[in-house]
């Protein structure tokens, strides 16, 4: 038996975990349910690794393996199979989905500790991983769509996991409804593929893409793009993602940063032969939507106070980078950034979850500060994530972002400029977050007389001793600067217990992800072509559709230096404003409200939109309902007219039958001619 035959295990294990938890979840309880779910996803990861090596053993042109499990929908001569396509792209996706997923499952055991619905949470998480793996591995569009809807539904369940809070429940609804718009695009693309090629399996539609007419290819590509912007939270459909932060933090890390939101990128990368056949306006549109979203979301992130909202807008912004890359035909950098982003954004989200946990459910960054003393592991790993996303070499984010910027430059320097400004803003808002949360003065006090956690003594010793960890002289200098400005903040938050470091189940994933965020760049190093591991790996999937650029080495180095400088400028500005306090922070209200985009939608939907819908409702009531009710009323009236005929006198009926028979007989006798 070949190792590749194990590919069915990758979705089967999370499904088994899900089913077991459905049946036994309550009985298993905490923490057994969590361990079971983690083991299921971990097993899935191991199976993916086995399949990966199986694929690696094959010659490059033979690295696509389809395993058909059974016939799902046979319709005449046409059929849809349930089958899995293991090729370099899907396995690369699966590796980080299940790998990061395992770490997040482990983290959740600590994070969800004491929750009433502990086992239900893991049940949803397993179902999510199953759906995501089906999305990625499905060998046809319909199976991908099944996973696509599955992850959407799980996202809904998990965002509104604490559904007793109306705000959280409605955030889930918002995500679901917004995603439907994207789903519409996906479905139309699927229908168009079937109409044009008579098949929806990737094998046939991607192989037959060359025979598509330009118009059909454009339609399919545009509709897939609509699907992608819905799922991957791009302008104008990004609105659900910031609200999705209402869910528990591991959910934000797993679904809304690392995995589900990347499925749009996956879909477009998968469909690269179709995009290549489409009209020439498609790719620049994708690139500009991506670049615009990247910049737009980055500006919003600058003014957010909620620790998770910053990361949410940051995610939207980073996904914009990936769309930018896809738009310029740079699929490898898109996938590269998708993978590194999965590492460092999951890390940042889990770190923020650890902070929220340690701060007893406080999410407002203006009420934090100086936390690195209370939670050293979280702080150290968060700082690694920060350096990675800010594009500081040699962290992973530097390599992937730099490669996207390079391709953008080769395509259109204007795109590069937008990307560069975004990089600067990214470094700025992430530094702002790190400084507000982990450095500076404490903008909270611990309620006196309350027995805190283990490190309570540390809190009291704080004033006397500042240099607790190894930050050195610089940290001390920062500390002094803070105390000078301390009176600025008058709304001091009162905690009932001191902030505390999280349990090992939460810090271990942080450390693992931090390691990956540091070395993740190694999968695609720019120095020599021997080090383009990811590009070589994905080559069978992308073929000639991957753009090849011709840029002098000097220019490449120059661009990288400019990008790093932009990142450093962002960090320096944030340092000057939020730590040195050289001037008051500028945080315009309009940015804090996300350019009032939500309000604009509400106003539009409440005004003309509502009028339109009421018009449709009126049409429905009068014309559509009128037709249906009219038929019913006619039947009822004629019925009540005919009711008088039912007298109950049997002999009347008999007479009727007799007369009728005679008349019929007479009629036939007249008709029959000899």
């Amino acid at each position, binding site marked *: 038996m070949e190792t590749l035959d194990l590919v069915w295990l990758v979705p089967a294990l999370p499904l088994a975990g899900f089913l077991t938890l459905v049946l036994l979840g309550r009985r298993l309880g905490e923490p057994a349910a969590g361990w079971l779910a983690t083991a299921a996803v971990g097993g899935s990861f191991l199976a993916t690794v086995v399949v990966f090596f199986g694929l690696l053993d094959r010659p490059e042109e033979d690295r696509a393996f389809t395993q058909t499990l059974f016939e799902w929908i046979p319709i005449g001569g046409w059929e849809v199979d349930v089958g899995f396509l293991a090729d370099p792209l899907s396995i690369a996706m699966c590796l980080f989905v299940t790998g990061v997923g395992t770490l997040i499952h482990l983290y959740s055991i600590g994070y969800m500790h004491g929750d009433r619905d502990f086992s239900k949470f893991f049940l949803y998480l397993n179902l999510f991983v199953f759906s995501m793996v089906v999305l990625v591995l499905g060998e046809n569009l319909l199976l991908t769509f099944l996973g696509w809807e599955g992850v959407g539904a799980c996202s809904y369940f998990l965002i509104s996991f604490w559904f007793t809070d109306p705000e959280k429940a409605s955030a889930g609804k918002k995500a679901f409804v917004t995603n439907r718009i994207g789903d519409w695009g996906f479905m139309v693309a699927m229908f168009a593929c079937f109409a044009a090629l008579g098949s929806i399996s990737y094998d046939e539609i991607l192989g037959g893409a060359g025979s598509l007419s330009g118009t059909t290819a454009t339609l399919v590509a545009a509709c897939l793009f609509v699907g992608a912007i819905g799922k991957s939270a791009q302008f104008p459909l990004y609105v659900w993602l910031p609200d999705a932060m209402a869910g528990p933090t591991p959910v934000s890390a797993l679904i809304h940063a690392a995995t589900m939101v990347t499925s749009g990128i996956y879909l477009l990368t998968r469909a690269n032969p179709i995009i290549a056949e489409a009209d020439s306006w498609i790719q620049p549109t994708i690139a500009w939507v991506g670049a615009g979203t990247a910049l737009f979301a980055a500006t919003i992130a600058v003014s957010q106070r909620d620790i998770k909202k910053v990361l949410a807008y940051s995610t939207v912004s980073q996904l914009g980078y990936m769309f930018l890359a896809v738009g310029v035909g740079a699929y490898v950098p898109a996938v590269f950034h998708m993978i590194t982003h999965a590492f460092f954004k999951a890390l940042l989200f889990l770190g923020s979850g650890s902070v929220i946990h340690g701060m007893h459910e406080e999410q407002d960054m203006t009420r934090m500060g100086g936390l690195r003393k209370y939670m050293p592991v979280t702080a150290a790993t968060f700082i690694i994530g920060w350096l990675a996303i800010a594009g500081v070499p040699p962290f992973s984010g530097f390599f992937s972002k730099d490669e996207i910027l390079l391709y953008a430059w080769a395509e259109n320097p204007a795109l590069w400029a937008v990307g560069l400004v975004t990089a600067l803003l990214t470094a700025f808002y992430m530094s702002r977050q790190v400084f507000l949360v982990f450095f500076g003065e404490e903008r909270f006090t611990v309620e006196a007389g309350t027995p805190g956690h283990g490190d309570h003594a540390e809190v009291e010793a704080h004033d006397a001793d500042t240099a607790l960890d190894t930050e050195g002289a610089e940290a001390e200098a920062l500390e002094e600067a803070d105390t000078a400005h301390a009176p600025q903040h008058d709304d001091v938050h009162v905690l009932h217990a001191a902030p505390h470091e999280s349990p090992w189940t939460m810090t271990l994933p942080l450390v693992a992800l931090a390691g990956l965020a540091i070395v993740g760049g190694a999968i695609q190093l720019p120095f020599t072509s021997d080090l383009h591991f990811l590009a070589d790996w994905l080559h069978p999937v992308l073929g000639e559709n991957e753009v090849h650029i011709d840029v002098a080495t000097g220019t490449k180095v120059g661009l990288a230096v400019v990008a790093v400088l932009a990142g450093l400028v962002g960090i320096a500005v944030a340092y000057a404003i939020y730590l040195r306090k050289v001037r008051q922070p500028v945080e315009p209200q309009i940015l804090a409200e996300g350019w009032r985009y939500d309000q604009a939608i509400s106003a539009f939907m409440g005004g003309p939109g509502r009028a339109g819908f009421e018009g449709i409702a009126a049409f429905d009531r009068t014309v559509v309902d009128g037709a249906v009710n009219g038929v019913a009323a006619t039947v009822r009236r004629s019925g009540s007219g005919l009711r008088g005929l039912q*007298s109950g*006198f049997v*002999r009347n009926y008999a007479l009727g039958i007799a007369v009728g028979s005679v008349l019929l007989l007479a009629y036939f006798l007249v008709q029959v001619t000899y």
Partner: protein
Amino acid sequence: MAAVLAAVEPSWYLVLGAALFAIGAVGLLIRRNPLVMFMCIELMPNAVTLTFVTFSRMLDDVAGQTMVVFVFVVAAAEVVVGLGIIVAIMRRRPDATADDLALLKG
């Protein structure tokens, strides 16, 4: 005896069948006693059966006689149900007429 039988024309049977059917139909229409009406109803399929057999004989086709078996089965089933209902009604109201049963129309 055989001569007498041979003298009987098949059409006589047809006439007899038609007459029986007419008696049954008219009886059903004019009588009000449920039991009598029921007997009239029974008369009609038997008239039809007779016609079937006659034609079967005339056309030398066994299909007509086969049909009779079916009619018997249906008639037997009908008697079981119909007579059961009528007996039940007569027990409760011995002097009920068919028109009184109009109450059942609901």
